[in-house]
């Protein structure tokens, strides 16, 4: 199948942003890797995603397509590599090339690409880069002062370094799943690969730190990020309750669901709202917020009960308090209730789903978080922006994700200096 790829604007050109001029030879794949390097591409870096036609990147294969609803585990055995929405989401603003690293010529091409880059990124299972001879020492020969970012589940040393992982495995191993759930039940954990997001953010920050440092000192570095360690680093104060106070969390009444042990907030919960599976979160921290909540609820008589008179009393009597709040909230639209409570100074939030974020939330709309780009196969699609505004810098959203091998001609000819005939031959031999 061929696509019209020479449409205006898809041919790579000079980029804008603080990272313009920085070239990244990007071996990253899967969600976590792709998301880590996307941040660099968003701010102007020339991130060249290196792919293998014979082993498609998972986000290209997952069946997140327009007009078809199925679980991501229900893969199409013969997917169109250019149709996957997840790949489009994760690899916008990047270039894409194909190369078969099992061939000697393929490895030669990649050596030349690394020599023409100054950052190399990867999140393979440990050992893959070594099999291709691409150790840090070798990369330094190709590109002095290179930054070599390695991202994996358990890190590149230690007894588990070869263990398999992906988001939920990382979440289990770092404690993140255990600390989420109702007391006395199995953990509810996470309904997403949260640690794929957070490990990616940690990796992006590590890459930017290394770039910033190289700009200062001229020196490159190797980076080792373990997703499990990134997770333990952000597990929160419970870690110190354990290490300082000797607390044991297993087998007790921890975690505590939507209630929190600290601060002594009450009411503190997720209450039903009008509609199917609609909910409202409320967190009352002090007497002033409680009085405001009672006012918004129309000063019901139950609220005058002495067992709700102080913050400590409310905290101690949450079992009695929560049904009253739920009886009030279940008659109300979650967004209207949120606005009314917030107007009175009460911390409240509609439990928003993706449709709300995209179509209801006036804050996100006003700040323009989501944006649209066209794609030759998928057509117009929405993208998640970066949750930050700069007074004089910005994202440079120039293109949706690359088609498989879309930038072979540009990268091999214009950056690496191969002739058109050589490129044709490489394609014919199955090297690219």
């Amino acid at each position, binding site marked *: 199948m061929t696509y019209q790829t020479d449409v205006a604007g898809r041919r790579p050109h000079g980029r804008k942003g603080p*990272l313009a001029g920085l070239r990244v030879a990007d071996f990253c794949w899967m969600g976590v890797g792709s998301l880590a390097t996307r941040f660099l591409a968003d701010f102007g870096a020339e991130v060249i995603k290196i792919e293998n036609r014979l082993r498609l990147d998972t986000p290209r294969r997952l069946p997140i*397509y*327009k007009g078809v609803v*199925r679980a991501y585990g229900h893969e199409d055995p013969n997917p169109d590599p250019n149709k996957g*929405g997840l790949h489009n989401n994760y690899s916008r603003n990047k270039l894409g090339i194909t190369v078969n690293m099992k061939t000697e010529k393929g490895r030669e091409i990649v050596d030349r690409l690394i020599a023409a880059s100054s950052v190399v990124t990867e999140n393979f299972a440990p050992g893959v880069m070594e099999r291709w001879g691409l150790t840090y020492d070798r990369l330094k020969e190709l590109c002095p002062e290179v930054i070599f970012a390695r991202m994996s589940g358990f890190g590149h040393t*230690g*007894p588990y370094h070869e263990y*398999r992982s992906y988001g*939920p*495995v990382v*979440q289990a*191993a*770092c404690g*993140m799943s255990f600390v989420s759930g*109702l007391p006395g039940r199995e953990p*509810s*954990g996470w309904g*997403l690969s949260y640690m794929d997001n*957070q490990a990616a953010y940690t990796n992006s*920050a590590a890459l930017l*730190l290394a770039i910033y440092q190289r*700009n*200062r000192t001229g*020196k490159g570095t190797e980076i*080792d*990020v373990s997703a499990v*360690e990134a997770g*333990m*680093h*952000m*597990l929160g104060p*419970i*870690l110190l309750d354990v*290490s*300082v*106070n000797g607390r044991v969390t*297993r087998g007790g009444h921890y975690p505590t669901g939507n209630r*929190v042990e600290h601060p002594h907030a009450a009411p503190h*919960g*997720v209450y039903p709202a009008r509609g199917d599976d609609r*909910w409202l*979160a409320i*967190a009352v921290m002090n007497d002033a917020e409680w009085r405001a909540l009672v006012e918004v609820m129309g000063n019901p008589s139950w609220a005058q009960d002495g067992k709700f008179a102080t913050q400590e009393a409310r905290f101690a009597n949450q079992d009695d308090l929560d049904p009253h709040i739920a009886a009030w909230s279940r008659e109300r639209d979650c967004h209207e209730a949120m606005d009314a409570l*917030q107007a009175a*100074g009460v*911390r409240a*939030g509609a*439990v928003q789903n*993706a*449709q709300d974020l995209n179509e209801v939330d*006036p*804050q*996100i709309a*006003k*700040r323009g978080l989501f944006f649209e780009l066209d794609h030759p196969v998928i057509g117009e699609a929405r993208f*998640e922006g970066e*949750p*930050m*505004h700069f*007074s004089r810098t910005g994202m440079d959203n120039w293109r949706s994700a690359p088609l498989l091998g879309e930038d072979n001609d540009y990268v091999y000819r214009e950056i690496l200096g191969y002739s058109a005939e050589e490129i044709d031959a490489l394609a014919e031999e199955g090297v690219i």
Partner: protein
Amino acid sequence: MPNPLERPYADLKVVELATDPGGEMTGYLLAGMGADVIKVEPPEGSPTRAVGPWLKGEEGPDDSLAFWYYNSNKRSAVVDYRTKDGMATLEALLAGADIFLCTLQPRALRSAGIDHEALSRRFPNLIVLSVTPFGLTGPWADYKSSELVGLAAGGPLFMCGYDDHAIPPILPGGNQAYHVAASFAHKALLVALIDRQMNGGGQVVDVSMHEGCAVTVELGNPYWFYPKALVERQTCRHAQPVRTQPAIFECADGKWVYFVLVVAEPKPFANLVAWMDSKGMAADLTDEAYQDFAYRQAHYAHVQGVVECFFLVHDAETMFHEGQERELPIAVISAPEELFEDPHNIERGFFVEVEHEGIGTFKYPGAPYQFSAFTSVPRTRAPKLGEHTNEVLGALAGEAVGAS
């Protein structure tokens, strides 16, 4: 040129006016790479000092473990920015700073008389890093937030909970809305720092926790962008547009493991069956019929049941290592106290010892990233309230004398 062994932020001065864990974590990430972070606190202390858990259960401004967790390696100066004198001191500190890290929302900024744009004009090299619940602009800019409200309005909460939807969505643990804010704040700051290196000059950077959460929903947005499907929460596994099989298994010792039973791919399934068979527990899964994907798919519930029995009679730790040896992605759902004893974490030296004079030496998490060319600053305890006030104000006075 700086010494290449020097840490990246060694020459950065940061003034932190942070009143929540998101801002405070951001400040700690900067201090951890060498920045001099002066935490400006009102006389009553940062609000985090009033939040437990507490050292030995005793409340006190210097005994909050929440404050300890988020404020390592900083200096604390009491400066009441709500008074005229305090504001003058804050401005004097900002005159010598590279970064002003501030979590105040627009109304609080106005009432304190802080104007980020004006500060940016007055101190052209200053990066004003604002990290707030909803950002500095927009109709919700002054809405109040919390960990629960942040994850609720931001989107992740809808995806988390149990198969039973009579149970509301359940808050994932550990202040993650604030950690999302801190992660994006650090990345945004690095963009501004690199911009300052390349083009000169600071700017105002406005990071929104709400928007950070709204893009930290993994498949949630793509399922809406493409098939227009909403994902539904399931117990300890991915929220999906259609129901999928359970992914956690209880073991003989009462611990749970996370393991996704992949029937689609032949190799992991074969590895699983061989493993079960080695313990005489493969039941009929060794039958040739199961080599056919369609057959496996059609008998998924039976396969699930046999696998549940297999886990139920073995310890979680055994299942973890034996499964991983057979290249199956599996892990024990570890409790916090187990992380400190884990041989892998011990061998990598992840947890570090931090001394609290007169109290004891305690284990803290180490850095989230390792670099061959430089290291993080060894972690030190959070400052006591106002511990460095004299030192910080004395240095300011010294500069004023020097300048006159």
